[in-house]
């Protein structure tokens, strides 16, 4: 019997080639989207789950409350002060191991003539007590305790010691100290939030400022003892700040997050995780479901619309003894077959699309056909799609009455016609939703790109300061840089001025409430900082090398002045990292972080020895010349290091990588959703035209024009699209308003976005339908009437 079903299914697929290809191709497109997104979602959800006992590894943040205003929002620091890790290790019995890491610099590794930059960490002794990585050679735990040893990963080992044992070999870090390879460990998988190529003992780079509670710069991890909950450990840690941190910071409370949540739930509001990347995972999960539904709707629509052609078969089968259940089974197995065909095709599509998808989404997804889970997903998807798209047609077709059909009295009833309309509305609602999403996300991205930040990011080059043997050499280099005719001005900075990270509670000023923690972002800079970045000075001046007192002076932004409640701060005395000093300048507020954040208080210290980047503003139109000049200069001063420059505006774009990916992906998927919807509409229009063949013939005989017939046939569909627009607009408005709320600075959802989305949907629908309508309208009425 099944063979008979399959035979019929295959033959009817072959017989109605247009409908079959719309069905199979539409489903395959939908499935391919779902599969791609499914692979991506699976990858996102897998982050940090591979660590042994991952649920017991926690990332430590610190919550701060305002002692004067307990109702104010709790602030959360995602980096921690240096002494916290030691205090936890000493005081908290619930914790089995603790770890402190620096931010993870990229250092130049040199072995013989071979050099390459690798990212790594200075880490405290118990790294491997927290993160248990498989060992390839040596004893990593012991090696990390030695100040002259380095632990490297397999990849780094293979790169620098391709033919043999890495263990015991020497390598040089940043043209400075030599280390002996004490152990080689397995590479960290790509789905780890922690990435590194090398590890060196913390104490090698430890400095005094790292031992204070006021400077938060480090990442702290703990591994809990078995059977200890996060809440228990947090409760135990609540006494650490009051006991150790001093009265300026006594409201600090460490808060723990399981490492398995770190990747997806990294946003904190009022002391609690409120989501993060998980939002995008959810959004794209929904998009995948939407697209699959749209494709299924096509199948259902075409199947019920074409029921007239299958009706005779249903009648005959019933007459010769088929029960309704066996007919339903037959039609379900047909949709299964279509679904299986489609999924096979979709695997091919995914395979083709994966490289571009990876490039766009910044992932390294693969289609591993030996992975049983992949097959489970694929088969599951095929079955779900088959059942979803086949159930209504099966239900409907098997209910047809044989006598009506066989006596030729069969008309597709109002029931399925209404059902089809509802489905088309549903389909186009989703499409309109996606179009609005595309336009709004695109508008916000434009806004981010074009917003004036209060500083110049165009024509600014930067590169890390590294490899200079002494200050003198570096000073000479900088003098030469500024002297280049292609260079406008240059400065140095501890972090990039568009992405300032480190904050401190160390700022003191006359009249400060000692009980209250005032966090201020801080950055070391060289001379001409404001001039190079084209930041406006509201009052006072930039740091100048010619003014020796500047080494203990400070420059602040307007937000800091407001925080300190000072009207004319210039000349006032404050105390910070460089000791007591005067404020010499106030900068106009500029955006020093992504536009998700509001502008925060910022203080600049003048000490270019503590800076990490050289920033150069080139003269207009001379950027290429400047790059060539700078490369020559860099080679001369610093032959061991490659001249590795970047553009500041590229770095700015990187701040919005997640949004950029969303923008690109939603564009792709939006276009696909519309394409699939149109495929369905096209088929449906073809069917309607066919069904109304006789009506069109009669109307033409009676004198109807081609235009009036095209209108007649298109009107019904366009009405449905209009309804879809009305339904989708509020939903889209709500969702996108929520998304935009995640930005402190944002564009508005103008009405034209909705107008344009509606117009686009209507236009596309009209074009799709009109091909069939015009074709039908141009047919000679004689042909359609003769067959009667």
């Amino acid at each position, binding site marked *: *019997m099944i063979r*008979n079903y399959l035979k*019929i299914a295959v033959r*009817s697929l072959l017989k109605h080639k247009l409908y079959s290809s719309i069905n199979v191709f539409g489903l395959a497109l939908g499935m391919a989207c779902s599969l791609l997104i499914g692979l991506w979602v699976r990858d996102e959800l897998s982050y940090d789950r591979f660590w042994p006992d991952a649920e017991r590894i926690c990332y430590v943040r610190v919550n701060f409350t305002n002692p004067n205003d307990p109702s104010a929002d709790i602030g959360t620091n995602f980096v921690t002060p240096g002494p916290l890790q030691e205090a936890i290790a000493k005081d908290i019995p619930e914790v089995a191991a603790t770890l402190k890491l620096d931010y993870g610099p990229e250092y130049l590794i040199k072995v013989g003539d071979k050099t390459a930059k690798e990212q790594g960490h200075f880490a405290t002794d118990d790294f491997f007590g927290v993160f248990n990585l498989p060992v390839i050679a040596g004893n990593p735990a012991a090696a990390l305790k030695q100040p002259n040893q380095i632990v490297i990963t397999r990849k780094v080992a293979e790169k620098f010691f391709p033919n043999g044992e890495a263990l015991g070999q020497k390598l040089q870090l940043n043209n400075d100290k030599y280390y002996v390879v004490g152990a080689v460990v397995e590479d960290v998988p790509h789905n780890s939030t922690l990435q590194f190529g090398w590890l060196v003992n913390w104490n090698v780079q430890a400095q005094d400022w790292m031992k204070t509670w006021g400077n938060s710069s480090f990442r702290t991890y703990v591994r809990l003892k078995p059977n200890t909950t996060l809440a228990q450990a947090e409760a135990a840690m609540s006494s650490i700040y009051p006991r150790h941190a001093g009265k300026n910071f006594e409201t600090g409370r460490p808060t723990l997050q399981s490492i398995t949540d770190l990747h997806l739930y990294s946003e904190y509001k009022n002391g609690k995780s409120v989501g993060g990347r998980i939002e995008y995972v959810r959004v794209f999960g929904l998009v995948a479901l939407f697209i699959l539904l749209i494709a299924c709707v096509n199948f259902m629509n075409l199947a019920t619309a074409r029921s007239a052609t299958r009706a005779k078969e249903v009648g*005959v089968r019933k007459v010769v*003894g*088929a*029960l309704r259940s066996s007919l339903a089974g037959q039609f379900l197995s047909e949709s299964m077959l279509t679904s299986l065909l489609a999924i096979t095709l979709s695997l091919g599509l995914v395979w083709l699309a994966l490289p571009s998808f990876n490039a766009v989404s910044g992932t390294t997804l693969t289609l591993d056909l030996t992975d049983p889970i992949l097959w489970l997903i694929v088969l599951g998807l095929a079955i779900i799609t088959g059942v979803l798209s086949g159930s209504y047609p099966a239900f409907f077709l098997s209910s047809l009455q044989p*006598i009506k059909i*066989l006596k030729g009295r069969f008309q597709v009833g109002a029931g399925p016609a209404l059902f089809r309309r509802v489905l088309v509305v549903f389909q186009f609602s989703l499409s309109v939703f996606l179009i609005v999403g595309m336009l709004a996300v695109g508008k916000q991205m434009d806004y981010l790109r074009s917003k004036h930040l209060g500083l110049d990011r165009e024509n600014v080059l930067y590169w890390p300061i590294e490899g200079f043997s002494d200050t003198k050499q570096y000073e000479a280099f900088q003098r030469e840089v500024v002297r280049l005719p292609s260079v406008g001005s240059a400065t140095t900075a501890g972090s990039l001025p568009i992405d300032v990270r480190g904050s401190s509670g160390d700022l003191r000023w006359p009249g400060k409430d000692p009980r209250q923690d005032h966090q201020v972002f801080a950055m070391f800079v060289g001379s001409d900082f404001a001039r190079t970045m084209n930041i406006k000075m509201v009052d006072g001046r930039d740091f100048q090398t010619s003014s020796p007192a500047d080494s203990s002076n400070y420059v602040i932004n307007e937000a800091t002045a407001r925080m300190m409640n000072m009207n004319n701060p210039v000349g006032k005395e404050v105390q910070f990292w460089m000791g007591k000093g005067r404020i010499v300048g106030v900068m106009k507020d500029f955006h020093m972080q992504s536009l998700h954040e509001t502008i925060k208080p910022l203080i600049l210290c003048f000490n270019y020895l503590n800076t990490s980047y050289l920033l150069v503003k080139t003269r207009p139109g001379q950027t290429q010349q400047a790059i060539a000049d700078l490369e020559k200069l860099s080679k001369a001063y610093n032959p061991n290091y490659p001249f590795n420059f970047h553009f500041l505006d590229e770095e700015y774009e990187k701040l919005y990588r997640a949004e950029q990916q969303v923008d690109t992906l939603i564009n792709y998927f939006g276009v696909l959703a519309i394409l699939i919807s149109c495929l369905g509409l096209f088929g449906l229009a073809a069917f309607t035209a066919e069904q109304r063949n006789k009506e069109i013939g009669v109307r033409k005989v009676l004198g109807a024009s081609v235009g009036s017939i095209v209108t007649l046939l298109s009107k019904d569909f366009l009405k449905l699209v209009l309804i879809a627009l009305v339904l989708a607009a509020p939903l889209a408005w709500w969702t996108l308003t929520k998304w935009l709320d995640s930005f402190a600075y944002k564009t508005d959802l103008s009405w034209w976005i909705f107008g344009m989305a509606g117009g686009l949907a209507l236009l596309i629908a009209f074009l799709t339908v009109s091909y069939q309508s015009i074709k039908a309208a141009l047919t000679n009425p004689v042909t359609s009437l003769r067959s009667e």
Partner: protein
Amino acid sequence: MIQTVNLQKLFSTEEVETTALNGINMEVRDGEFVAIMGPSGCGKSTLLNILGLLDNPSEGEYNFYGTAVARMTERQRAQLRKGSIGFVFQSFNLIDELTVYENVELPLLYLKTPADERKKRVEETLERMSIMHRRNHFPQQLSGGQQQRTAIARAVVAKPKLILADEPTGNLDSKNGEEVMKLLGELNDEGTTIIMVTHSPYDAGFAHRIVNLFDGKVVTENFHV
């Protein structure tokens, strides 16, 4: 034996109510060949559908080989129909996607007849209807006569007690029509009960008895010898 008592059938739409059958009392004995005649719209086909268990009467009784079937559900009727009634239609109603062989095989598939038995019976029947040489063709590749012979083959392959034919020669030329009528006559001679709706007095001549319907009522019954 099948027997109807006071069969009524009403068709109603929102505005019009039509009486298609109005008190039909009728009896058909095993092995009989009955022709039902009458002008268009007199209820012939409606009666045939009820007799064939495709439809229920609005009122009245219908005894089908000892079972009262007038109030049965669609599902029960389908179970009963399977294997006991064969249908032949004016427009053949073959499934276009299946070959001659597969069309004929269909009733046996629904009866879950074992494969070797199925093959034997289908081949016998095709041979009998002289369309064996066309077994792998699709319906649209056949002449009208061949299509109707295929339809008859499908109607008889399960060896039903009753064959219902609704104007079986209506779409055929006279030569092919003659052949089809001869086939039905032969089947009847072998013991199959046949009820046939027809407009053609010539075709009706093959039957033992003619039932004339007019406006949903039996008006006369003529017996042939």
